[in-house]
């Protein structure tokens, strides 16, 4: 408990998860262990179906592991908690609520009501640059805007840990880059702990302090790569030799796994 352990925000301890599929048992995660430090930004890459989303859902408390445990702030995770926020790939905005009401949702859940909730929500909406759209419904927004609302809503719950499941996966390259930059800015300012899943090796590298490479079948951690590139990182970072070197390495590792899956 003493010493550097205090810095550990999330302990993933030998987590196994099996699903009962129609064709029998599917081992989604087979003994995953990982410590995430406070304020750390870790990114996760791996072939499709290797259990990334499963792991995120277990940390979020949306799924129970079959065995093993997740400890968050020293407490074993059972069910969701306001200390952990999630941004889903499919945005998951409430379509019947306006942008502002969406962002107010977690505030209302905390018992913050009325003008106070509205003011707070507007603060987070401004953070993602959408104050002009506060009274719009999600259907009136573009994909990138929706994802920004989802991020604002997750921030509004003021979680210490942000869990993101391919949040920018559905976006075009420009919007994606812009949102990555915004995310890095807020992360550096607010110092949250981030657990970020992506398919995009560039994205994993530009954001993360560590990149977790997962292997398929059975889903486990294959390698953890420290990204020793200082922040602030931007588009030019992608041209540096160190970035390219790391990218090459991670790429080949992921590609190997991809080939495994194809076999």
């Amino acid at each position, binding site marked *: 408990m003493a010493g550097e352990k205090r810095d550990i925000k999330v302990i993933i301890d030998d987590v196994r998860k099996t699903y009962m599929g129609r064709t029998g048992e599917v081992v989604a995660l087979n003994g995953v262990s990982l410590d995430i430090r406070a304020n750390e930004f870790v990114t996760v890459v791996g072939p499709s179906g290797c259990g990334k989303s499963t792991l995120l859902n277990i940390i*979020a408390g*949306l799924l129970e592991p079959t065995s093993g445990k997740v400890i968050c702030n020293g407490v074993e995770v059972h069910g*969701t908690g*306001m200390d*952990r*926020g*999630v941004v*889903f790939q*499919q945005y*998951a*905005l*409430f*379509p*019947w*609520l306006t942008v502002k009401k969406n962002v107010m*949702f*977690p505030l209302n*859940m*905390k018992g913050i009501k009325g003008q106070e909730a509205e003011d707070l929500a507007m603060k987070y909406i401004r953070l993602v640059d959408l104050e002009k759209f506060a009274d719009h*419904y*999600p*259907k009136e927004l573009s994909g990138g805007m929706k994802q920004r609302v989802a991020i604002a*809503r*997750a921030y509004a*719950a003021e979680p210490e840990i942000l869990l993101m499941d391919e949040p920018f996966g559905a976006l075009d390259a420009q919007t994606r880059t812009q949102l990555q930059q915004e995310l890095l800015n807020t992360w550096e300012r607010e110092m949250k702990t981030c657990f970020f899943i992506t398919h995009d090796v560039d994205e994993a590298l530009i954001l993360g302090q560590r990149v977790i490479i997962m292997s398929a079948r059975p889903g486990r951690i294959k390698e953890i790569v420290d990204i020793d590139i200082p922040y602030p990182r931007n588009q030019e970072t992608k041209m540096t030799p160190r970035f390219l070197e790391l990218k090459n390495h991670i790429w080949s590792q992921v590609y190997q796994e991809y080939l495994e899956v194809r076999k």
Partner: protein
Amino acid sequence: MAKSSKGKGAISDKAKNWLWLLLSLAAALALWTLLSVLPNTSRSFPNVIVVLQQIPVMIERNVLFKDISSSLISVGLGYLLGFVIALPVAILMAWYNPFRRIVEPWIQFIRNIPPLAYVPLIVIAAGVGRKPQVIVITIATFLIMCITIYQGIINIDETLIKAARVLGAKDKDIFLRVLAPASLPFILTAVRLGASVALTTLIAAESTGAFAGLGMRIRSLNNNFETAPMLLYIIIIGIIGITVEKLIKLLERKLTGWQEKREI
């Protein structure tokens, strides 16, 4: 999904829509008039003027308003009851799998039987008068509304529930702030389909030895081959149907305008 051209270029579009509607109406009248002169169909389709003249005649006979109000009461009551039963049953089906497993096959089975077939059984059990009419309409509307609402509830995007949970929602919040608004569009669709079923079941319902009613009157007029008032009554049923549907559609637009896509 579909391109929504509604709401844009509002004025000219609206005028155009009305114009087309008028044209459609005129064409229908022309067709009707044609049917009223052709030798084969003229007996079944008296012309517009003759049919309109039946309005004062039926009022004179002291039946028109009684029939309309009697039918509306039966349809309204049956429909309301159907909805009040369908909503909790649909929720229960979505929420508790064993219940669904048992009840859904019944619903699917009965749904495919024309109400007219089981009307005699209901009359034997419930006697004649208002009661069997309401029961028949309740059954028919319950079946369609229950299935529609149930389908809607189970198709609610699960990530919305997950998102709500992650944002601190408890079971009660999930129910009131996610499941309820998310199923509102399906409930309204069910309400619309239910209304249409209620009306189409009317004839069957009023074959239960009713003393008044649009459906009952059509049958009794049929016995005397009084085609002009029959046609009038048929048109009245049509007008009631389309009015109710338009009103519900208006309600849908008001309440679920946030929807991404609009289903039929």
